[in-house]
């Protein structure tokens, strides 16, 4: 049962990832990324962290990708035209990435890393110890991330706003 769920969602994740990188229209890329991230959330549940799965769907697919869609629709980014040229770069990139993945997979397979897994225990999946860890041992990173998010909000607001009329006349002078 677990194997069936893993295979279905792993294949779904890979197929939609291919659509993300290959489709001409960026809106379809974003929607395929939604499918990929949702499949990854299911895999997170299988691997024993339902909290991260819920957070992934809530934060990543529910907010970040919606933001991507907004920007695409706001800027009216159209279909990417097929481009001539840079063929060599494309094939070098593809070959390099495939080599990298193959090297990593070879590393995992040859060292038999984590080849077996014991079924999950309640203790492992439990939310309370994780939360306790977050708010006691890892409190400093938590607060720093909060500060980072504040900085990001300020940065995004400043970068994306229209220059006010005084600034425009300032620049054109």
């Amino acid at each position, binding site marked *: 049962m677990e194997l069936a769920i893993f295979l279905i969602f792993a294949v779904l994740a890979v197929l939609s990832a291919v659509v993300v990188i290959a489709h001409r229209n960026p*809106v379809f890329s974003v*929607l395929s990324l*939604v499918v990929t991230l949702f499949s990854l959330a299911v895999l997170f549940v299988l691997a024993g962290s*339902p*909290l991260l*799965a*819920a*957070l992934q*769907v*809530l934060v990543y*697919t*529910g*907010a970040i990708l*919606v933001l991507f*869609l*907004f920007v695409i*629709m*706001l800027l009216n980014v159209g279909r990417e035209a097929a481009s001539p040229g840079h063929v060599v770069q494309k094939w070098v990139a593809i070959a390099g990435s495939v080599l990298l993945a193959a090297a990593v997979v070879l590393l995992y397979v040859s060292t038999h890393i984590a080849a077996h897994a014991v079924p999950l225990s309640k203790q492992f*999946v*439990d*939310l309370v110890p994780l939360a306790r860890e977050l708010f006691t041992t890892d409190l400093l990173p938590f607060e720093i991330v909060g500060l980072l998010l504040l900085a990001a909000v300020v940065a995004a607001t400043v970068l994306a706003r229209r220059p006010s009329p005084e600034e425009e006349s300032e620049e054109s002078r």
Partner: protein
Amino acid sequence: MSFEFWATLIKMVVWLAVLLNVTPIMVWVERRGSALIQDRPGPNRVGPLGLFQALADALKFIFKEDVIPTQVDRSLYLLAPLLALIPALTTYVVIPFGPQVMLHGHSVDLVVTTADTGVLLLLALASLGVYSLVMAGYSANNKYSLLGAVRASSQMISYELALTLSVVAVLMPVHSFRLDRVVEYQHQGAWLGFLPHWNVFPQIIGFVVFLVAAFAETNRLPFDLPEAESELVAGYHVEYSSMKFALFFMGEYMSMAGLSALLVTLFLGGWSFPGIAFTGVWWWVAIKGLAILVAKMAVILGLFVWVRWTFPRFRFDQLLRLGWKLLLPLAILNLVLVAAMTLGGWL
């Protein structure tokens, strides 16, 4: 198949039966309720008191010509109405409709899943509702649809924040994400000796924030600018006809029902009612719990209809200003107050 499997399946069927009946009943309530408020008769020809009006509407939708405009992006256009239903249909899995019962020697929790991530699961699935709007608006290749879709999705994600913060405040005294624990917390004791131990009394600010945010999440008046008939020519719905439009319609009513169920569970005591004991045969307990929950949901859905026909709608910038500058600070204030009260031992 094991006992667990069959029990879960039956619970899901019970909930589906409730949810699928919401739309026809709400259509009637909406039309007769609006007629009452506007001092006119409303539908009264199809069956006694116009009760079969929803059936007539459904037949109309089925027989209407299914037009697919040529300029639309077909795959997204056809997928969007289906996606409108999925979040609405999955959010009921963590809402309890009764206490634990004993059945054939097994103890069964009257909730479809007792996952530890409880309400977080519900919020995560509900946040996927934005995509059907966006896909509908974008695929139609039409200025008005796109504008409606962008407005609707920015409205939904803005009010999700206030919604989530008011939910978090409720979870603090309960020390768990699970909604069945939330209802158990509200089932015992009383405030000031006579009020039921519901969360609405100490957390009235959170209740109001959740209610307003629920109106905005479901695109109901006074926040329905993205889909108003007199504004953007029905906004992101404009290119849809017959059954596809009916699917959007159903999705909206079902998500209203889902959010009402969440509101009732978090703030108004869920399946519990002071004075009614939940002892006895397992099916009697389940029926009592479900009936009380549905009755409370009906009150809130009536409130939805009442508010719709009473208030004028918000302009879009007023809407966003309300969400970010009023509701979010109020939700944070509520959170701080509840944290203080929990630490002080009053909750």
